[in-house]
């Protein structure tokens, strides 16, 4: 058998790969990080908010150096109908000071920065290099990767697959049982340029403070959700769309964004923004339902490649799950290499770490959330029902006396055609997930 060239090959320079390489290199291993783009993050897209607290241990006081656009100090959730909007708006100054909570950031900045830390730790970053296959030994164990470069084989004791959604490596290794279009959503995003002062004014924030808005009911007949985030001098507006629905309705995602941007509650926020960029990407959205096996002889799978993105319907957290799982994969790989056992058994430390931490705990907790949030009732019936209830509560119909809330709710529920039983059940699912 040919000797390995390196201890660990990490495939993919996204947040998962960078953290895996960083941790393995810091543990003293010989690590190569392979990225197909010209630099980490060059083509990577996402909505725009990261929750970096997992970095507290990896990069102490990361907030002093992280390439952040704005600190999220305001989070809103909007329910829209054609003409109405109900918004739950929360703001706190606490999230605008260390250790912070969420931040908006550009992926070409963020991923490049993280990978820089992996390099500083001694990992060798090789860009413009695509992995096109796994090298396996006669027992099926992974012993390296094949790249698109001439003489492009690289043998390693452990391969960590961090190649993102639809992971080619995990699939080639047979770790996914089945993949189904209904487990994915399509994320589509526009970046619009506006002067910083205009953004500050429209979103009522100052300095480096920013806003994160999630929107239900803005995607028309396609189930999904919308989002709107503030960067320093751009805003990100996008939608996340349920794939089978999208295909069935034969609607173009850009048309759905365009319509959302015309909504009376959204239009004033985005007006005059100059389109800088348009991008689209798949999101693994079914969580536990679709997760592959993450450990096999010689290989670990982390981040989106392992479907670890937490898509609680429209509240997407993927980067933090990617960073955390990458970090645990790096630790487990180091443990296995040092222990001289890189079989699935020797690499089990990874699975254990995932189970013991928020990575899988949050997934278990929010297991049913995506289904609920993207269900027809939540998508097409509840926004109108809620908006009508609120409208009637706040409407002053003198000389008519004010009606009781209970009556309004019952009337509006019946008007929307929602059965009481379903409403209670959805409420309970929601409470168990988010409560």
């Amino acid at each position, binding site marked *: 058998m040919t000797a390995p060239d390196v201890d660990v090959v990490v495939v993919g320079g996204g947040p998962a790969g960078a953290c895996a390489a960083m941790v393995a290199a810091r543990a003293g291993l010989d690590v*190569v990080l392979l990225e197909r783009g*010209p630099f980490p993050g*060059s083509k990577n897209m996402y909505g725009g908010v990261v929750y970096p607290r997992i970095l507290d241990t990896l990069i102490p006081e990361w907030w002093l150096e992280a390439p952040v656009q704005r600190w999220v100090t305001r989070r809103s959730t909007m329910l829209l109908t054609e003409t109405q909007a109900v918004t739950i708006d929360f703001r706190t100054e606490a999230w605008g000071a260390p250790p912070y909570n969420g931040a908006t950031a550009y992926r070409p900045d963020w991923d490049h920065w993280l990978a820089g830390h992996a390099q500083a730790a001694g990992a060798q970053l*090789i860009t413009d290099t695509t992995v096109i296959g796994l090298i396996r030994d006669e027992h099926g164990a992974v012993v390296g990767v094949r790249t*698109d470069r*001439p*003489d492009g084989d*690289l043998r390693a004791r452990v391969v960590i697959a961090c190649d993102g959604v639809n992971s080619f490596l995990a699939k080639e290794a047979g770790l996914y049982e089945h993949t189904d279009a209904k487990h994915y959503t399509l994320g589509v995003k526009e970046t619009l340029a506006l002067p910083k002062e205009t953004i500050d004014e429209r979103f009522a924030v100052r300095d480096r403070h920013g806003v994160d808005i999630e929107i239900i009911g803005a995607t028309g007949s396609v189930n999904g959700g919308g989002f709107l985030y503030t960067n320093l001098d751009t805003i990100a507006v996008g939608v996340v769309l349920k794939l089978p629905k999208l295909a069935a309705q034969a609607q173009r995602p850009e048309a759905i964004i365009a319509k959302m941007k015309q909504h009376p509650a959204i239009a004033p926020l985005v007006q005059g923004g100059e389109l800088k960029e348009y991008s689209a990407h798949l999101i693994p959205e079914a969580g536990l339902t679709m997760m592959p096996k993450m450990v096999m002889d010689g290989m670990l799978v982390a981040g989106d490649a392992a479907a670890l993105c937490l898509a609680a319907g429209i509240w997407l957290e993927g980067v933090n799950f990617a960073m955390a799982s990458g970090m645990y994969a790096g630790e487990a790989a180091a443990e296995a290499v040092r222990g001289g056992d890189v079989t699935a058994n020797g690499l089990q430390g990874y699975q254990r770490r995932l189970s013991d931490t928020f990575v899988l705990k949050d997934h278990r907790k929010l297991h049913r959330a995506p289904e609920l949030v993207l269900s027809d009732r939540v998508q097409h019936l509840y926004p109108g029902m809620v908006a009508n209830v609120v409208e009637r509560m706040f409407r002053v119909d003198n000389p008519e006396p004010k009606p009781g809330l209970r009556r309004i709710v019952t009337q509006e529920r019946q008007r929307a055609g929602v059965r009481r039983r379903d409403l209670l059940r959805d409420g309970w699912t929601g409470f168990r997930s988010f409560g």
Partner: protein
Amino acid sequence: MSIVVCLKWVSHPGEPHDSRFSGMSHADQSALEFALQQAESTGATVTAITVGPPGAEKVLRDALACGAHHAVRIEGPTTTSGTDVATAIADHITDARWVWCGDYSLDRGAGSVPAFIAAHLNAQQALGIIHASIEGDAVHATRRLDGGRRELLEVTAPAVVSVEGATARLRRATLAAVRAAASATIPVVSATTPMHRAEFMVRPYRPRARVLPAPEGATALERLRVLTDAAAASAARGDTVRLEPADAAARIVRALREWGYLAH
């Protein structure tokens, strides 16, 4: 040192100047490919050379990964004049037989460095070449002339050849070579004559006012109207029509005939 390739570390226009968006231009990549091919066919060695700060070593490592035998960085600022760059390079490669360059650098974009090197070395030059073939000890190069004409040159050493970006496609480096180049030590030398940072006032590009024929019109006021195009200054320049493709094609043909591009 028989074959030299001059590589400039540039960032792409419109992108921030940082390591992510910088590297070799397409033109310099073509130059490197020719240098490597020439080395293969003649058995000579290739030295990649750059004038720039430490960050510029990126292009030298890329060259080493692709097969260049040696690399040298001449310490210097990113914004030296073409003359200074050429002098610094020429002073270090006095025994070079062949010097390959890109036709223009993306930032300075003057295309003068190769000719200055040729002048310094008292060498032949073939600049802005759009096609080159290595013929034994010579290079046959096609150069653009005005009016779409071409000049076919036979170039013999010592010579400087600068090539356009689309003339050759740089080979892919092997994985092992990329890894080795990443940790290679790059010799750094200082320029023999001091280099000057080029000082310029910079403003965004605006086209210069062009000299146009005098406007028609009997009175000064009429001429002024014609010049300022007061009547035609509305938003769109012509008609916008919504047509089915078949009608669109017919409409195009009609317009081309009306404007005299097609016979009646």
